[in-house]
């Protein structure tokens, strides 16, 4: 009688390792030819191993920064750190390249006051700052904007029967907060971690929303900082999102990967959906969009008058109040939708000069009903 314990044991490792297929062995890395390739780059299909891919990624970011002369030597760079994959990768890459570029880094994190999301992300940022030994500054909406947190904003915009437009508030106020934080640490430049997919989505979104002004301004690698604002740039602009994720994976970076609580309502979701479909149909669509956005300008007839300064805070504004002040004004007056959309009726008594864009020809009900 043979018991099962006497049977020879078959050693198996879990999970099943990939069987080497003699028909199609995994290719070697195209760059170093030593290691086995670990991935194919999404754009070019080139097979690379982990280290070579990371090196290539860093090289591209370096070229972006250097060729665009984005960060001159001696710059104090404030990195907008949200704890997500893009800003983590950005901070890591810039930290690697900092000695070569001659810049010094500071981390600035913005606390919007979204419960259950932002606090966890901030914990990730703190861990990163500790690991990389970079100085971290946290600015909170509640401090900067008179006690308004995003949750409060969402509550106040929720009741109007249309979907909430908290993403508009969050975007505008966050940029202002980042600016303030950068000034606090004495930075000369601000960098954010937008990648190519983000840029392409922004282009599509601006088309769908009819924001010709932003389309004409938005191309290129960042703004030089008009009207007293700090120059902003996006070194990861030409890296696709997949590559960012892969880089974070190969370098074993620790980031916070959940999406914002309010994200499902955002209009950007539509643009993202379109972009993913386009990418499936034509893989170069993402970079094509970014490239063609660089080439857009407003027709001479549609150019708005040159912007002036905000009456309250002095920042660049095309109307009497800059967008951030206008939004906060609306919130404080209890009419949160005051500054959203075209026209901005009733915002200022003296009636700022209207932009040269023609008003929508239909009645107001025909304005888009968006969540942006």
């Amino acid at each position: 009688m043979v018991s099962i314990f006497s049977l020879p044991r078959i050693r198996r490792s879990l999970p099943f390792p990939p069987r080497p297929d003699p028909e199609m062995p995994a290719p070697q890395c195209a760059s170093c030819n030593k290691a086995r390739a670990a991935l194919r780059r999404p754009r070019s299909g080139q097979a690379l191993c982990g280290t070579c891919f990371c090196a290539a990624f860093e090289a591209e970011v370096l070229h972006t920064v250097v060729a665009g002369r984005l960060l001159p030597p001696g710059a104090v760079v404030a990195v907008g750190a949200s704890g997500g994959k893009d800003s983590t990768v950005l901070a890591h890459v810039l930290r690697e390249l900092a000695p070569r570029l001659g810049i010094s880094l500071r981390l600035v994190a913005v606390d919007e006051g979204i419960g259950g999301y932002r606090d966890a992300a901030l914990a990730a940022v703190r861990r990163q700052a500790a690991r990389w030994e970079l100085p971290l500054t946290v600015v909170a909406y509640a401090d900067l904007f008179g006690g308004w947190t995003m949750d409060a904003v969402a509550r106040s915009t929720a009741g109007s029967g249309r979907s909430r437009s908290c993403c508009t508030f969050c975007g505008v106020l966050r940029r202002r907060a980042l600016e303030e934080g950068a000034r606090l640490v004495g930075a000369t430049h601000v960098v954010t971690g937008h990648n190519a997919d983000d840029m392409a989505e922004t282009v599509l979104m601006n088309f769908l929303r009819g924001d010709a002004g932003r389309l004409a301004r938005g191309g290129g690698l960042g703004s030089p900082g008009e009207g007293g604002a700090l120059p902003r740039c996006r070194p990861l602009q030409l890296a696709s999102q997949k590559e960012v994720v892969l880089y974070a994976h190969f370098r074993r970076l620790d980031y916070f990967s959940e999406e914002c609580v309010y994200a499902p309502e955002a209009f950007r979701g539509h643009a993202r959906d379109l972009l993913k479909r386009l990418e499936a149909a034509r893989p170069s669509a993402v970079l094509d969009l970014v490239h063609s956005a660089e080439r857009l300008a407003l027709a001479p007839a549609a150019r708005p008058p040159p912007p002036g300064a905000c009456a309250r805070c002095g920042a660049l504004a095309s109307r009497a109040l800059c967008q951030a002040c206008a939004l906060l004004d609306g919130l404080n007056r209890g009419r949160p939708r005051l500054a959203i959309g075209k026209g901005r009726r009733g915002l200022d008594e003296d009636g700022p000069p209207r932009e040269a864009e023609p008003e929508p020809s239909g009645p107001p009900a025909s304005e888009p009903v968006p969540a942006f």
Partner: protein
Amino acid sequence: MCEVGEDYRESAPGGPPLTRPGREQKCVKCKEGPPVVVIRAGDAFCRDCFKVFYVHKFRAMLGKNRLIFPGEKVLLAWSGGPSSSSMVWQVLEGLSRDSAKRLRFVPGVIYVDEGAACGRSPEDRARTLVEVEQVLQRVGFPSHVIALEEVFGLPPSVLRCFAQEPESVGTEGAYKAAVDSFLQQQCVLGAAGEEPWSQPRPQGPQSLAGPPTAVQTEALSRLFDSVKTLTAKEELLQTLRTHLILHVARTHGYSKGFSDERHGDVVVVRPMREHTLKEVAFYNRLFAVPSVFTPAVDTKAPEKASIHRLMEAFLLRLQAQFPSTVSTVYRTSEKLVKAPRDGCAASPPGPRCLLCLCTLDVDSADSATAFGAQTSSHLCQMQAPGPQAEAGTPTTLCCCPGLGGAQGCCSSPPWTPCRLTSWPRPSSAARGPGASRRSKRICWGTAMMRRCPVGAEVRALGPHPTRNRQARTGRQGQAGCLWLSTCINKNVLIRKLYSTHGAGRAGPLAVCGAGQRRAPQGRLAGAAVLRQAGGAAASLPTAQ
């Protein structure tokens, strides 16, 4: 959605949380008649008000741009579909009515039979032609029925862009002056009895000079079959159709066409572009506008088949939620133009694409996207493993390692080293005249993959594709370089990839490695094939 008749009160289940204004009983405009259709986001119109609204939009489109002069010959491009039928009908009504603002131009209609491109049988096409003739009889304008095969017989002058300044139509004075000069010109022409720009007429003016020959049909279907993606097919069809219409317009003396000022002398106007599909459909239905259904290249194609279909489906979906999407996108695109390159705003227009006559997007500056656009399929592969043996030595640029004596490429170095990183950058001399026709179509996509000496070995690339064709031929195993010619056509990019070497040509990807294996699959999709990454990543820790 909103329906004709009495059902307008039912709101769609799960629709956007808008209050349905269709509950009113009366038309919003005249407040008397029963509403039959809901336009935009909630204006219900009665039948007559709708007609007035529709016609007014059409007239406003024509009148706003002040492009049509009285007495001018205008060619209407009719495809048989609802929009163009509606347009022809509008013109018919506008001419016949003795209203105060009677249209004052001389129309002609052209119908292009595209059956060969869609692969229809000759009997189908004959049947369609019979219906088309019936409708054209009813309309009564001088008509031209052309088959797409005749595009093979077009003279090359079609592609020449007559560099003529479009008349400035900004002010009243300019318009009147333009009209006066036009009328004078007509008198002169009438006296002289000939048109200055006409070509010798290839066939009779009215209907087609016999059905197209089978050879031509076959040539056309071969042409369309050779185009791989549906997107490209649609674009090609559109281009050929435009050329054909342009040619007919020029030969028969039509100076305006209804359907961009790219072609200089014949101006294309699109009066239906502000009308949404829904309005057109309802108008045709309510007022019995005749139309002929012809299947197109993308009929019954699934949504993902081409970019046009994708966009169409997406916009329609979005339009259901946000009713002003289409007009918003349209108005935005009206406000945008191509940005002049920095510092050379007044330079003469650059080379033009051969087919669609748009300016090529030649990127002479070192734009960031030019580098970052590592291309999607064909790529500049490594050469023979020889030079890899001496790893780490940065080989000089534009040298052809593995080949004794670089022939033509080093002789005329088209490089200037970047002063910061000493990377090569194509100099402007590389684009001088005397270049071969093909390599003139360079643009931003010339992606050379470089490795910055940041820890990795520098990989010398293949030679810069030189002008010298002899230098390029006769090299085996040479890494191919890429030429990308991008023609920007109002945010539609058409990319044509030219690869200069057999190694890099369409098909298998040459993976450099010991033995130069080729990946068995064909063109790689840009979406990362992460299966291998997933499987290999698990073993990565051990490899490191």
